[in-house]
């Protein structure tokens, strides 16, 4: 997939599963895929503190967790597996990013509660632009940075 031509169709902006499926169709054949078991999901939900939406559960159990990259694009469809179980809330991710750059954000602390509730389930990196895909208890959002 040519990163310069990556334009996520509007209708996929609020449908993470459809978006990942759309991207996976373009994934290189050597994409890294890992099986996700019901136990992996249970561990992830215990850490996240809420049950993942049923559609996501089915999506992960069917397709597993996946990671692929080519020259310009990196995509990650993330769920706990046997090998990977990182805490991944938007708050933690943003906090860590700021920590590296030595910057602070009042907004981040102000919205900490909300961002703690956003569990990252995917990432698209295209050049310097990173798009994080996250789910909340009953909502799904995308965040463009």
């Amino acid at each position: 997939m040519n990163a310069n031509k990556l334009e996520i169709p509007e209708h996929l902006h609020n449908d993470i599963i459809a978006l990942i499926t759309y991207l996976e169709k373009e994934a290189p054949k050597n994409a890294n895929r890992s099986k996700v078991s019901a136990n992996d999901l249970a561990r992830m939900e215990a850490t996240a503190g809420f049950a993942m939406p049923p559609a996501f559960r089915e999506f992960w159990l069917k397709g597993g967790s996946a990671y692929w990259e080519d020259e310009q694009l990196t995509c990650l469809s993330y769920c706990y597996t046997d090998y990977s179980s990182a805490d991944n809330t938007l708050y933690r991710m943003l906090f860590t990013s700021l920590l590296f750059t030595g910057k602070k954000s009042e907004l981040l602390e102000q919205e900490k509660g909300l961002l703690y509730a956003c569990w990252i389930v995917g990432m698209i990196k295209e050049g310097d632009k990173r798009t994080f895909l996250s789910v909340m208890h009953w909502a799904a959002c995308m965040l463009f940075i």
Partner: protein
Amino acid sequence: MDDEILRHALASILEQKESLADFIATIKLPDEDSDDYPNRKDEEDENEDEDEEDAAKQAFLEKHQLEEITYEEVLERMGLDQLFDYWNGEGDVQVMSLDNYEDEPSYFEDYSRIYYCDTDLEIDGDLDISGLYIDLLVVKGNLTVHGSVTGWGGSGMAFYVTGDTTIDKLQIDDLQTTLGKESVRYLAYAWADDHELLRKTSHRKIDAPVFLCWFYDLNCFEFAPDTLITALYEYDDLSAYKTNNAFLPWHDFASAFRSDLYYPVEKEHHDNLNLNIDGIYQAMKHGQPIFKEGVTKEGILLVNEGQRLLAAEDKQGAWACFKKAMEVAPGYYLAYSEGGKLLSKEKAYRQAMEVFEKGIPFKPEKLDYENTCAEQAALSAVRIGEYDQAIEWCLDVLEKNESAYFAMRVIGEALIFKNELDDAKAYLKKSQGISSIFSTNWLLGLIHHVQGDLKKAEQYYEQAVRNSSRAKPYSEYIDMAYIYGSPVTLDWV
């Protein structure tokens, strides 16, 4: 990155903040000083957690008289040279993570969290105590766990029990020895790490109401007669397995289990055993049914027996089993699909159609590819001239699964009989685009033959011949009666 950029990036989430207010209010957040985050806060929390864990762990160990000892002390107290046979070099069991160790002592040098109980041990709940990591549990007496035990391969533990072992839910693994009788109250399962290789384990007796098996060789196990076996691994190997137990191979579980106890299966060749293991266990533990309404173990056994008799060419005996299964398990889809297939093969198309039709409402909800009853009912209907009924059933299939190529093929044939050739051609071409099977190609060729396009007719005919040597030229046959024969009525049905 300043706050404005961040606010812009977070816009879609912030918009939802109001509607999520109640949810956010329920989150208890740490109030740490962000300058020191995450280390200081984590350390504090961890220390508190560790204290709590230590207390829980100690209480558990004391309550159950468990003592942490070394591997050498275990051998001394048990008067043994070794605990497990794995490293004896006998048998063909090979587990990569165990083979990394040349012998048992070197394995337990790394996995040294060994707990010993000098008497009977009864645990109320899962053997999953916060802060207590057990690599090996040795019990000099009986072990009873009113909960779940995970094998060491699934990050659980190995065990050695001199008496009897009784566990509610057990993941079968190597390094689990019971010198007395081992029984599982609800659910035992053997689950391989991946589907690359059929795993073997040393011979094991399984006494559990339900046994789930994914890529473990069933021949390694000796089952109690009442154990229901659900298994999935290489189709040929699995088909070769013979048992008198109630047996649900491959995706047959979807016809028997409640639909909330398994996950969707998209394609017939998918080799995941998409069962909700914990859901099944919890249902059993709480006395709830695990089967769909109208499905019984007796029905499953009858279908298994019918399949065995059919393989031995005893058609009437097989039919008797399928028919009985429909009576004792009226919601069991496989009773109808297997029974219908038998009658269809005997060319008793009206009788087959009636049986398939009864099965349609019981189609496994989450087995996306499965349409046997509806498609075969329709195919039988075509054979006896009930074309509109055939089309109706197939359209129902296509409504739920737009790539159901066989339903398209049956509609195509029905429309040929109704002399609606252009519509028939459209369905057949679409079907062929998805799967180029013999009958679709032959029927497409037939339409072109009838419409006078002999060149195209020949092309499709040649493709049909490549699909099957049974193809006959259009100069001799203008329908598929040479394949399906004339309908009969069986007097033993």
